[in-house]
């Protein structure tokens, strides 16, 4: 069986290099036959695409897509630099 570190590295590379995603900041963890994706993106579509690319890259693993979606909130207070 392939070492989980190599599988995780391959998934991470796929998320960065696949033209559908190009997402560099996603953490990939493998525990037994479970694959966890963690990080933040700005939309549900991107989260689903990341899940799809991860699943295609490691189809034998059970995928847990724990990526969070961050909402942009209105700008807050100014910071004064003096």
């Amino acid at each position: 069986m392939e070492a989980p570190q190599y599988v995780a590295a391959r998934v991470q590379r796929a998320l960065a290099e696949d033209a559908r995603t190009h997402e560099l900041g996603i953490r990939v963890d493998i525990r037994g036959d479970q694959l966890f994706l963690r990080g933040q993106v700005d939309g549900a579509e991107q989260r689903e695409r990341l899940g799809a690319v991860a699943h295609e890259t490691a189809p034998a693993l059970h995928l847990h897509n724990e990526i969070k979606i961050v909402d942009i909130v209105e700008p807050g207070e100014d910071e004064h630099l003096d």
Partner: protein
Amino acid sequence: MSTLTDLRIAAVGDVHLGEDSRGHYRKHLEGIEERADVLMLAGDLTRHGTLEEGRVVADEFRDLPVTVVAVLGNHDYHSDQQYEIASELRDAGVTVLDDDGAVLQCGETKLGVVGGKGFGGGFAGKSASEFGEREIKNFVAHTRHIAEAWKVALKEVQADHRLVLSHYSPIKETLEGEPPEIYPFLGSYLLAEAVDTAGADLFVHGHAHKGTEKGMTPGGIRVRNVALPVLGRAYGVYCLDDCD
């Protein structure tokens, strides 16, 4: 209330707009003229660096009531269409810096902005150097050439305030939260050294999505990581001088 010499700088990076993002960011820019005098875009404006995405970005930031200055990020270079993207942005009225500078007239105040994409290499004591294979030498020389260009541009700029706009980071502090193993791909101390030598009031960057907003160069210049995921808000606003 603002006085005449106040300067309110709005900044954000890593908006990563895709073709499905048309209009998403624009709505957060409503009323920006009440909050800020200028808007700085710190690169990674697109996801894949395609011209189509560049057009989405140009439309999101077109005809704003404040001056917009941008640099590109590594994502904007991915499809080798960085020059086309930059000219789309320029056609939309955005000033795009590419290792050069511009002076903006903001009321009574002149703001000099210098910058570009920047690049990596790591931080003092733990950085790559121009030694060995050609590939490593090219990597480090790319950053060195950028830092030299910024130093020259900063010295030439005649303005009341000087700001550096970059995608990559000049310091480690604003990378905190990222895995330390990838710091050399997130920035370079050569950028900080150049800017400390020439002087500036503020250094704004993006790129490190999991980093930290606030830091300072060894020479005491304030650094702000304005990557959208770091800010968690549409943009940060930084006041120079005595505005309140």
